[in-house]
């Protein structure tokens, strides 16, 4: 039994090390948002301040970049969730001509290196004479997040009891009422999870965006551009707020899930 207890302690230690390792970058980001730095670089602790929160929107280029990123993330998430849910439903429910190919493409889109995707999208847009702006960024973001929504929704759909929808039909509901009242609520957790995933993928994407952005600057692009001259502490603050919003959503989701069961 002593060996078992020692093993337990080792497991505890290991677990805490992992947690520390995972959360330290986040902790550093949050901490240096309060750093009263004087120089351009933000790498050594120089005292506590709330200045960067007060001056959050003082760098207008950065503010524009963040606003662009939020708009693009919201738009691409909405589009992705709608198309992805339809695809996931079709692929999870039916076997049809082309379903095998579609399943393969969904997988291929996940496994394609972003660099390849970005370069090929750029050449597509250039050869098609499409001007690069936030629209092309949205198209690109939909493209790489779509598969994740499809996969989560499809996984949920295949576990769904098909007689649920039949029961709705049997009780007099038409096709649309059945979808709205029975199918959609049943797959909602997967739809929401897919939506959050695609939002997260969109808001921090650098590689693909850098190919198709034209003159539009997003939050990650602006930060990478600022690396050479030193990242302002406002970036830490914005990162902290985005992270905080994510945590709130996750906690809210967990609470809702507990209330449901």
């Amino acid at each position: 039994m002593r060996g078992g207890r020692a093993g337990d302690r080792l497991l505890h230690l290991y677990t805490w090390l992992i947690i520390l390792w995972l959360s330290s970058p986040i902790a550093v980001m949050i901490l240096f948002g309060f750093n009263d730095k004087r120089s351009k670089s933000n790498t050594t602790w120089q005292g506590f301040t709330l200045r960067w929160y007060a001056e959050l929107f003082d760098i207008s280029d950065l503010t524009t970049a963040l606003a662009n990123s939020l708009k693009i993330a919201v738009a691409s998430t909405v589009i992705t969730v709608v198309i992805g849910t339809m695809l996931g439903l079709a692929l999870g429910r039916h076997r049809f001509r082309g379903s095998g190919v579609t399943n393969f493409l969904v997988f291929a889109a996940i496994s394609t290196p972003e660099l390849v995707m970005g370069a090929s999208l750029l050449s597509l847009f250039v050869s098609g004479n499409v001007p690069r702006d936030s629209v092309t960024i949205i198209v690109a973001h939909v493209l790489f997040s779509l598969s994740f929504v499809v996969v989560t929704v499809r996984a949920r759909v295949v576990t769904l009891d098909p007689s649920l929808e039949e029961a709705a039909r049997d009780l007099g509901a038409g096709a649309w009422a059945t979808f709205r009242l029975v199918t959609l609520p049943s797959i909602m957790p997967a739809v929401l999870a897919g939506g959050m995933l695609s939002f997260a993928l969109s808001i921090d994407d650098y590689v693909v965006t850098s190919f198709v952005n034209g003159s539009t600057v997003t939050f990650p692009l602006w930060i990478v551009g600022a690396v050479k001259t030193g990242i302002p502490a406002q970036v830490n603050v914005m990162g902290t707020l985005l992270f905080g919003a994510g945590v709130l959503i996750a906690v809210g989701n967990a609470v809702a899930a507990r209330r449901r069961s």
Partner: protein
Amino acid sequence: MTGLSAIELADVVKEYHSHGEVVQAVKGVTLGIGEGEFFSLLGPSGCGKTTTMRMIAGFEAPTKGVVKLYGQDVTDVPPNKRDVNMVFQSYALFPHMSVWDNVAFGLKQRKVAQAEIRRRVGEMLEIIGLTGREKRMPRALSGGQQQRVALARALVNQPRALLLDEPLGALDLKLRQAMQIELKRIQREVGITFVYVTHDQSEALTMSDRIAVMNDGVVEQLAGPREIYERPATAFVAGFIGTSNLLAGAATGGEMKVGGGRVLVPGHDGDVTVTVRPEKITIGTDEPAQGLSAVKGTVSEVVYLGTYNSYAVSLADGAEITVFQQNAHDATATAERGDSVWLSWQAQHSYVIGS
């Protein structure tokens, strides 16, 4: 069966395409189900009983044939426009809706007035004994309660027929027996035609007014429970319903020679197949009187089953006969393994199978 046919199937065929082959799940079923009748479709899995029911509900379109409800051809009518409701094997309760919302679903879809919905759902919950649990979610209910909600959700719409697809399959034996009686009571109270799909022969015998025994896509026999049990039309029915002994041979002058004995088959000549139920047979050591069917054999197995003993008796020609003897007086068996015995039964209990 009272007058008008609630449901009519005319030469209904259902074919599936699977791996380039055509599979016939239902091979020409014709039957009429009377208004207010408790009608069972009984058969082993894969016999086409569920497919037949799903064609009545509208979930499957027949490849050939006509489905009629109250004389009206509904073959091409979608399920949401058919005046029948179904209780699913899995119950298919909407997991995100409360008991109340589940039961009210059909009435809401039919745009019934709010006050009327409240009255009818309330009444229904009372009938199934779930008043006070309206706000519960399905997963917070026991299996038996879920079953009753599924029943209420269908019945509250006052359908012209209720279709039940093995609704008691997921319940344990005690609850299942209680629900059988409960179902029969509810059916009598609401007076709605019930079509009941089951593979459980005792369930079908207990509840049904009439039973269609299905096998391999066709109806083997359509009759009342007593008729089905006492006079099985085919060897399949005889074997599927309860335990049955089959004896085959050539009859001359109304008597068939079998295993060192005789089976009386009055009025039959030539090759015949006879069934006799195990509980109709008397086992004994003395040679039976004339006027009884009697065969001689050796006891190869005795099984004590509480309310009765089951004997397996091998005849001289190798055939094996099962005999049930009620455990009325004491638990001692009449014969032991290896004993030589006579089996006898009255002529009326030999039933000659049609084909």
